[in-house]
């Protein structure tokens, strides 16, 4: 039981403290892609810990004498002593739920998110078919005074500009907007957003997952900004963002996509320092450690058990 309790405690700590630590980390604005990786590593580590907690309860319960060789039986008997000896179907059922429920739930909500997105994108594509194309960028132009730009993934991706954006922005600014949208498509950002959205829908009661969709949404905007800034310069991009933002209807609803525009413009003008090689190493090491902890909690008794079983034969 110790291992299961440890795993669940670790998962709970990740779910509550993980997002707080990540939100406080100053390096995330300077290294958005690394931050995306860290959010997902934290979420993945949580799921791994929960699934393994189920496994370590189930495995000892399922032991049957003579099921395998003598060595395996000794090994499993040792494991049983370490992991717990409490029997009963209730526990087994709870363990199976732990083991299967989280991945099943994630898979189910991912299926829903992807199906919805596919249907809606199909609808949008039909609506956009046959509309005029801006020659320089290949973006589809829809009539609309308010300047806006979108990208529609799948099938090579499609960039959409409103006629308001085309007439308001100069050539360079338009290039910045298109470079930003292209970066989304090239980076497959919609996939990251879909997974985050699915995890948020599946486990939204936990702070880690409740914040995931919005944080990933913002971080992919930062990543796309970086790519566009490399192509056209961060000042031009900041100017385009500001121009487009200024032309929006005041008091508009909070947007699900697009990230926090104010933070993005400030970041482009102030250029926060990205972590150096040592910093990147530390962050990657931290991610690996977060993923390794559940495995280590499980592995410790296994190592002991194998050792003891070897001695007994």
């Amino acid at each position, binding site marked *: 039981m110790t291992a299961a309790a440890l795993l669940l405690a670790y998962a709970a700590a990740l779910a509550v403290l993980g997002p707080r630590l990540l939100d406080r980390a100053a390096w995330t604005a300077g290294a958005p892609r690394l931050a995306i990786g860290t959010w997902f590593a934290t979420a993945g580590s949580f799921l791994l810990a929960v699934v393994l907690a189920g496994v370590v309860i189930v495995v000892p319960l399922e032991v049957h004498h003579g099921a395998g060789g003598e060595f395996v039986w000794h090994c499993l008997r040792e494991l049983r002593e370490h992991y717990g000896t409490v029997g009963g179907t209730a526990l087994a059922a709870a363990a199976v739920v732990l083991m299967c429920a989280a991945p099943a739930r994630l898979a189910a909500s991912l299926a829903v998110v992807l199906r919805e997105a596919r249907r809606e994108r199909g609808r949008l594509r039909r609506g956009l078919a046959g509309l005029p194309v801006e020659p320089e960028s290949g973006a589809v132009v829809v009539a609309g005074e308010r300047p806006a730009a979108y990208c529609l993934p799948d099938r090579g991706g499609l960039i959409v500009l409103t006629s308001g954006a085309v007439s308001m922005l100069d050539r360079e600014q338009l290039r910045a907007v298109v470079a930003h949208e292209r970066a989304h498509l090239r980076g497959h950002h919609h996939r990251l957003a879909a997974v985050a959205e699915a995890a948020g829908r599946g486990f939204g009661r936990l702070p880690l997952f409740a914040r995931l969709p919005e944080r990933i949404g913002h971080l*992919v905007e930062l990543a796309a900004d970086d790519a566009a800034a490399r192509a056209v310069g961060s000042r031009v991009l900041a100017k385009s963002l500001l121009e487009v933002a200024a032309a*929006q209807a005041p008091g508009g609803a909070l947007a699900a996509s697009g990230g926090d525009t104010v933070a993005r*413009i400030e970041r482009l003008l102030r250029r926060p320092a990205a972590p150096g090689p040592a910093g990147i190493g530390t962050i990657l090491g931290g991610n690996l450690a977060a993923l390794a902890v559940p495995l280590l909690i499980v592995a410790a008794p296994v190592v002991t058990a194998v050792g003891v079983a070897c001695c007994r034969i």
Partner: protein
Amino acid sequence: MRRLGELEAAVMDVLWSAPGPLTVRGVLGLLAREPELAYTTVMTVLDNLHRKDVVTRERVGRAWAYRPALAREEFDAEAMASVLESAADRGATLMRFIGKIPPEELAQLRALMDEDRR
């Protein structure tokens, strides 16, 4: 918002197919609907469409005559902009260039931008 309800779409179909402006009576006569709609219903729909700037109107005698503000193709293209907008509001289907902007922060950002130039 530029999206039309079912009844509004039917009324617009009539107006787009008509060679010139139509009064409420005229729209009612061309609307092939069973059971026939009440005069006041069509009047309300046209009034709403006028308020949304989808149709324009002019006095013809004592009645209003309505005509579409945009050709059907133009209207469809423009409706697409609001469809995209609402899709982006809902979630992960498509990505949008910018998101939330509290208006009071714009001035601040402009100042920051000018400062940066110096």
